[in-house]
């Protein structure tokens, strides 16, 4: 079966979930829903059911994780230790990133003899990419340490929840992943081994859900109340959407008129393509191929936004 990945922008103000599913020709039947990104509001999926025009089965990953942690203090303690270390690592990375990004940005703004300037710009971006690679590797190490010490068979309730999730997924062809808190969502997806379980399913995802499918998750917000913040590499996604960085709601979160800023974004993460998904956008992949793109844009190396190229 060629799996379909349907990536959408925020479902407000434009709700296009149902139309996108119909247009993609996904098989009829119920869909599983992962709304862990909504945290305590995970159970409120009536709107998803109405928009999808399908019967929905909530996998309740957030609630299940809460129950597992409440019943398993040892697991909770190790999980928290991992989270504390990841957050401390992210802060250290942010500290280094601030200076490395400033240097790259200022270098990109430099003018003069291109024979002098261009190599400096390339080197500045190379340093940024090296920092990102280093950070990703460190994040992966912390995850690997946790995984190596983690034997799910020793955790009864976790195993039981896993079996229930496996059984629910066995009865559906399509999984819908909502938006929300991308870190919370990813943690629950990893905890219940969804990366593996979703490889053979069609997936419809928007915003944080779409980000979670990529290989690398990049956090960004140019218009937060505390001012601009450098885009940060957060960690690995599920890898179901290779070679793409997903940027939901770019119209509100990115200063799209700042060409230097966008050019740096594009060159920093190349060869991955940075794709914007505003509300109303649709990006359809069959296997690795992009077969349909509506309103989705990609950031070119020049810093301009262009239509996504179909493959």
């Amino acid at each position: 079966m060629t799996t379909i990945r349907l990536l959408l922008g925020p479902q407000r103000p434009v709700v296009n979930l149902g139309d996108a599913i119909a247009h993609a020709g996904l098989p009829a039947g119920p869909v599983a829903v992962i709304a862990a990104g909504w945290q305590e509001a995970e159970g409120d999926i009536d709107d998803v059911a109405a928009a999808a025009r399908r019967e929905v089965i909530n996998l309740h990953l957030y609630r299940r994780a809460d129950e597992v942690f409440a019943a398993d203090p040892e697991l909770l303690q190790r999980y928290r230790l991992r989270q504390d270390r990841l957050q401390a690592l992210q802060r250290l990375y942010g500290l280094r990133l601030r200076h490395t990004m400033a240097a790259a940005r200022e270098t990109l703004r430099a003018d003069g003899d291109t024979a002098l300037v261009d190599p400096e710009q390339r080197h500045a971006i190379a340093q940024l990419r090296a920092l990102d690679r280093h950070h990703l590797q460190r994040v992966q190490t912390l995850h690997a340490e946790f995984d190596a010490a983690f034997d799910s068979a020793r955790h009864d309730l976790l195993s039981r929840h896993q079996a229930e999730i496996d059984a629910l997924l066995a009865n559906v062809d399509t999984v819908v992943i909502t938006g929300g808190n991308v870190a919370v969502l990813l943690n629950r997806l990893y905890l219940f081994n969804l990366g593996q379980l979703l490889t053979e399913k069609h997936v419809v995802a928007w915003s944080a859900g779409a980000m979670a499918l990529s290989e690398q998750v990049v956090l960004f917000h140019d218009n937060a109340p505390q001012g601009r913040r450098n885009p940060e590499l957060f960690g690995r996604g599920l890898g179901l959407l290779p070679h793409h960085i997903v940027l939901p709601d770019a119209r509100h979160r990115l200063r799209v008129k700042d060409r230097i800023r966008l050019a740096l974004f594009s060159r920093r993460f190349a060869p991955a393509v940075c794709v914007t998904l505003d509300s109303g956008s649709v990006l359809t992949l069959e296997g690795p191929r992009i077969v349909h793109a509506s309103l989705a844009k990609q950031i070119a190396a020049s810093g301009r936004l262009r239509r996504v190229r179909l493959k």
Partner: protein
Amino acid sequence: MNPALRKLFRKGPPAPGDVDAFIAATEFPLVDGSDVTFVWRGRAEQVFLRCWISGFDTAQPLQSLTGTDLWATTIDLPPGSRIEYKFELITAGQRRLVVDPLNPVLAHDPFGANSVCQGSGYQRPSWSVHDPEARRGGLETIRLDSRAFGDTREVGIYLPARFRRNRRYPLLVVHDGNDYLRYADFRTVLDNLIHYLEIPQLIVALTQSQDRLREYAADDSHAAFVADDLLPYLAANYPLLDDRASRGIMGASFGAVAALHTAWRTPGLFGCLLLQSGSFAFSDIGRHNRGPVFDPVARFMNSFREDPGALSGKVYMSCGIYESLIYENRSLLPKLQVQGLDVRFEEARDAHNWENWRDRLRSGLSWLYPGPLWMVYE
């Protein structure tokens, strides 16, 4: 003369009925760009405008408008300004201060109420007004036996809506916590900013001193109370994140001195400082000019400025440019920056009052405690 007043007087002194109609139809003070006209109506020997703005005469006379019981004066107030004022009336040799009866906008503080002049372009921040969609956080009170003070202290605790024991939260310790609640709409601000995801859900310890001019004046017992009495109690009874970056301390005026001093005395404990209009009296040479109650403050600030020690993390400072303390706050900034601290300094066209501090809370709190907006992609 203000255009509205000029129109009222265009045919000579208006009749009392015309004055009545004018007052009923007009908002006071009269704001015409940067010209702001204060109007008082009544009988008096003299009327003064009293607004405590550094650089202004503390008492500006209003002129009696011929043939009427109106008095007026116009000041130049830059756009975006917000000032508090009263009228001083002199009648039969007696002086009394009154709020402006023609202006319903009041600001409250522990000493009573002042009238508020909102200059051209000033708007009360929308996030400081209760948002009906924002869930309300809870308030509870703890009683804490303090070894540092040798007595029992009450501390208010704010818990975010949807507080869960199985989560962990950053902590913010607030000086003059009850005053922040009462005069700076602190609970509403927290509820709204948490709802907007601009700050994380956090636990706030609202401390209040009965003797703040002493305990907040760089007092070692107070620092010990926070570090050795309060924090251990909170850590034992509330689910807190246990890292410096998740622990902050704040205050305004003397409260800011207390926050800075406590952080200085407890290196590595607090990673976030929020300092509003700090009473950071100091002297480069000789004595300071702030009065004896500032003596311990000045001793501390002189030491601090000489050696900021192991203070680390992020510092948000704000100050009104109409306060005399703007000098002390501006001159503290480079001392912090040279230490490598991550410092954000914000000035406002306002003075030493609670609504100035309220109006800066969003930028201060969201910068020190970035919310999950960064993580949330709906």
